[in-house]
């Protein structure tokens, strides 16, 4: 396929892909998270960075649970034979999904940030890394599930994995902690670990977007005989 043709194909894919993305579960998860963080942040007399971080983490986990459903693809058995590769299809989906995720997280930061008592500041960057790790993890598991499964319902696998991961994160030993309050001595180390998790999630997404190895020979053949 020529570059222009490829671009046109991807563009043509945008609208139908937007229709099949599981927006409703994500809306439910993100909405519940935002509502909970918003309501809770108004319950505090004085909202400090530590409590604000907890609320944003709650919102992030709920959003990640919703994000676990964003890659659901009930038609996965029929798309195995289409000419547009798995990576391209995943890319189109991510291109649609990522701006929405960014909007959601921006809203969460704004809602909790606005309730913060005056001189305190949110560690926006660090908390964004945490949210990114959760969402990337959820998306990677979802993408991996769609890649391997006959049915394209990835959410029922990815969402429990997210819950499980969060429970594990709470139980980590002191020196390995991921969930630490702002100002803690382990803050920087913890966020390096979160950063690594973002990397692992992205690597997982990249892997999930690759076509199965056995197809590489077929692609090579196509390239030679073109």
């Amino acid at each position: 396929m020529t570059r222009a043709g490829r671009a046109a194909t991807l563009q043509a894919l945008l609208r139908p892909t937007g229709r099949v993305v599981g927006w409703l579960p994500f809306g439910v998860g993100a909405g519940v998270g935002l509502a909970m963080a918003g309501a809770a942040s108004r319950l505090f007399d004085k909202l400090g960075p530590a409590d604000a971080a907890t609320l944003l983490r709650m919102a992030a986990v709920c959003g990640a649970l919703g994000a676990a459903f964003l890659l659901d693809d009930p038609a996965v058995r029929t798309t195995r034979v289409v000419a547009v590769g798995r990576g391209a299809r995943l890319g189109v989906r991510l291109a649609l999904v990522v701006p929405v995720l960014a909007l959601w997280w921006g809203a969460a930061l704004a809602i909790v940030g606005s309730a913060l008592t005056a001189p305190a500041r949110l560690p926006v960057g660090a908390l964004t890394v945490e949210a990114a790790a959760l969402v990337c993890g959820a998306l990677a598991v979802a993408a991996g599930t769609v890649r391997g499964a006959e049915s394209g319902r990835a959410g029922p696998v990815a969402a429990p994995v997210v819950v499980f991961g969060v429970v594990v994160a709470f139980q980590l030993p002191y020196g390995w902690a991921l969930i630490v309050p702002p100002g803690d001595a382990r803050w920087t180390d913890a966020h390096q670990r979160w950063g690594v998790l973002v990397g692992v999630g992205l690597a997982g997404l990249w892997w999930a977007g690759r076509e199965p190895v056995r197809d590489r020979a077929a692609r090579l053949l196509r390239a030679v005989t073109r």
Partner: protein
Amino acid sequence: MSRVVFALARVEGMRLLRHPLTIAAVLLMAGPVLYGWLFGDGLPRFGLLHEPPRGLQLAMQLVLGGAALIAANFAVLRARRFGTEQQFAVLVLPERLRVAALLLALVPVALVGALLAVIYVGVLAFAPGAVGRLDPYEVATVPVLVLLMGGVGVLLGRLWRSVVVAPLLVVVSGAILLVFASVQAATDSFVPYAMTVDITDPMFLPPPQALLTWPSGLHLLYLTGLAALIGVAALAVRGGRSTRVLVAGAVSLVLTVAAVVVQTASTRDGLRTAAARQQPALQTCRVVERVTYCAFEEFVPWIDEWSAVTQGVLREMPPELTNRPLAVRQRAIAGTRGALGDPAGVPVAKWRADDAAAGTPGAVGIGTRWGDGTETGFAARLAYTLITGDPAALSTLCGGLGVVVTWIAGQATPLTRAGLERIDAMSFGGVSFPEGEIGAGILVPDAEISLATALLSRPTAEVGARVRENWTELTAEGTTLPRAAELLGLPAPKVVDDGWSCR
């Protein structure tokens, strides 16, 4: 028909037990204790048998209960997810009875929870130093919590067809118990009793048995009623409303509401009385080697432990400081439900007044925990009180005084030495030796701690002689850290200005 229901329940029960989430939950619950036993500090010593099931309940509800919720929810929605609902419609077993079978299938998972709870409590009871009397209601609460959560999973599956709801609810229930609970502040309201577990205690000094106010029996009744109500609701939604189901629903609703009302009413007075009680009146005092120790009834066996640490501290003190009468009194916080995370909830003034009234003015406080670093805190506050005559007010110990207090605390017994290492590893800026876990107590900045740690690695007799030789200057108010290091013959540690250091 009932045989068919039981057969289905057996199959579904097996599937729930074998579900990856259930297995993961069991590993998560058992893992940390097993790891600690095999590679860490051994079995959890100095357990409080009347207190631990609370933390266990919270973990069980969220981890094993959460797994049961999600797994049961997915089981209800299985037919829908795989598009086989129409096939089920031709089976002899009506949908209502299939739901009943699924509710029954939660029992094995709940029994696993009960087994884990019994093992945990048993380990705690047989480990050395355990005190208190086990409350069977608190242990029985664990399987009911698992049933309750599983029932919620079934109900959700009947109400909504989306599988996002169940994992979301696990997170939301965790948030309610861990976050919202710390915000709600009304002591007298019904809210704490309408929660599934007692969320108000763990951060404070756990109360002794005599000051316990949590109505565990009534609360178990409430949870049972709630679980029944949820089960009935799962049967009744989408047309399973037979007379029997409706009657069961009405009964469990009455039971649940009544249990909350009675809990709130009965505990409101209990809390007030507990807060106002003269704690010394509930304590037994014993004199060991001229030191008076006063402990709540069940903690009397710990007096020997306290005495060992006290003697370790007195050993390195100049004789003129150890001749004065000395008293050690146990502290507990009762009746502060709802004041969570609030240092004002630590009734230091009342403790002092109680001490004076009970004839032990200026007594050194000791908590209701032991063996987790609190023993080092006690040793440090004891040393500080002996040196300054002040029963450990809220202060930062700079220079020589901080070094001496920490060194004396660290060398008292092997337990306090290990405790110092543990709390130092888990703190930043400085190590605090609090009287009530938060609030009153003393704080020693990191630079002082590092000098004291350096002293601890040298022979005790040698350091002790040196400390006593320079006692007056070392413990004087203005002795700086470099000067203290010079007196002790060690290089002065580098001071990092992190906001906690002295000037």
